[in-house]
């Protein structure tokens, strides 16, 4: 059998070596995002909307390209294109974090919260699917659902995004219960670390949470042109989304698995990463259980 008849995987690796291939030692923060601003990168914020004229966003939102997904009384998905507000402030907070890290990235609001509680998982899914269809470079999803029946549709959309070259960044859920889509390998799941430095993130060796980023007492932009101190994995995810936007702007050729590899290689502290990010560690479980038991014992029996 001649060399040209062989399947690609069986040919000599030297003949397949890509030009400019790097070794892991080359993957430093300076190589990854040094001098990058996010220019040329489009980031979708799937959330409660974005207050586009917030003074701390400096006009980085493509207002006319946004979409508001709701479920009508008949149970059908309704998509409204164009400007919309932020129903709560959370989407503006996520947008502000991404913008603070990647100031030249263009942001688009995919509003899926604020249209009522009915069919919210369907609105999440449709909003995410729209962002994947639109080919956003980075998609931030600081929300999720614990409804198991939605796992497969989310799985398929996230896989589609992965193969279409969208990096989907999700907030891990603190609860010890499956939450989707943060559990899937095709997304990048993020929980909080203790850092105040927005560029200081950690790799977590115990998936499904893969990275830890600042999410405690974060000063974030909020609805009404204000700012607020906020804590939650919701605010850790956009830190990774922002850094990913920087990497993407400098290295647009990278695919999602390569982006994850660059993030891993540039994580501040791989060796000392917490054992169970986004969940209570065994020590914390013991401490929390003791505190809860003590609190309950002091209360005595509850009134019926």
């Amino acid at each position, binding site marked *: 059998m001649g060399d040209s008849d062989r399947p690609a995987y069986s040919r000599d690796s030297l003949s397949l070596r890509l030009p400019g291939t790097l070794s892991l030692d080359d993957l430093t923060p300076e190589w990854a995002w040094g001098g990058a601003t996010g220019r040329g990168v489009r980031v979708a914020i799937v*959330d*409660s909307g974005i207050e586009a004229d917030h003074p701390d966003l400096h006009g980085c939102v493509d207002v006319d390209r946004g979409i508001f997904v709701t*479920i009508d009384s008949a*149970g*059908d998905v309704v998509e409204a294109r164009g400007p919309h507000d932020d129903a*709560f*402030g*959370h989407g503006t907070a996520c947008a502000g974090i991404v913008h603070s890290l990647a100031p030249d990235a263009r942001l688009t609001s995919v509003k899926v*919260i*604020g*249209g*009522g*509680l*009915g*069919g*919210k998982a*369907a609105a999440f*899914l449709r909003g995410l699917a729209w962002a994947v269809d639109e080919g956003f470079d980075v998609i931030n999803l*600081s*929300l999720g*659902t*614990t*409804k*198991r*029946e*939605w796992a*497969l*549709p989310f799985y*398929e959309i996230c896989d589609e995004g992965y193969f279409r070259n969208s990096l989907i960044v999700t*907030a891990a859920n*603190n*609860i*010890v*219960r499956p*939450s989707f889509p943060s559990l899937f390998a095709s997304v990048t799941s993020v929980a*909080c670390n203790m850092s105040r430095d927005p560029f200081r993130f950690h790799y977590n060796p115990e998936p499904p949470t893969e990275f830890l980023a600042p999410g405690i007492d974060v000063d974030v932009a909020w*609805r*009404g042109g*204000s700012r*607020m*101190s*906020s*804590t*939650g*994995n*919701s605010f850790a995810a956009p830190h990774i989304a922002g850094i990913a936007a920087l990497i993407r702007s400098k290295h647009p050729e990278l695919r999602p698995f390569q982006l994850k590899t660059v993030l891993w290689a540039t994580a501040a502290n791989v060796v000392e990463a917490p054992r169970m990010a986004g969940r209570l560690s065994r020590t*914390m*479980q013991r401490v*929390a*259980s003791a*505190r*809860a038991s*003590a*609190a*309950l014992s*002091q*209360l005595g029996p*509850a*009134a*019926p």
Partner: protein
Amino acid sequence: MTDEVAPVVQALVEAAVHATGGTDGWILVRRDEVLEVVAAAGPAAAAAVGARIPAGVGTAGFVLESDQPIAIAPDADDERASTGMAAVIGRRPASVLCIPCDSDSGAVGVLEIVDKLGSEKFSFDDVELATMLAGIAGVALAALPSARAGVPLPNELAGELRRLADSDPGRYATVATLLAALLASG
């Protein structure tokens, strides 16, 4: 609420308020398009049981929709983060900790604690502790036969199945069609 569940969620909210150092706290359960207080603790909240606020607004509404825990410290004059419950307890909280009470069928309610004593805001330890207690509350609330949380109306169920059928026809299309036919037949 049933006699079996009421003491459990009441004990959980009292423990959550006590252990996190909050002033007041409550557990809200979704009933159609409103959230109802089913347990409460603290001087201002204790009488709030039975109060109803619109769903989908304020911190509780956001957490119920997003299924993400959150701790915020809004400005004293910021009424948005406390929309709904502020009127019930008679003040705007300076710090809010809100956690979804999850079950296998999604978030059935939220545990909300306000105004941490001696501090401007709740800590991440408070978030994790409250998350554990809210998880237990979620299991208890999901067992409520009277709670409609997580149990959609027939037309909501039909809509949900129709959307699932669009996403995954092979798995859901048949049951969606059957349910639609049942609804159509009255």
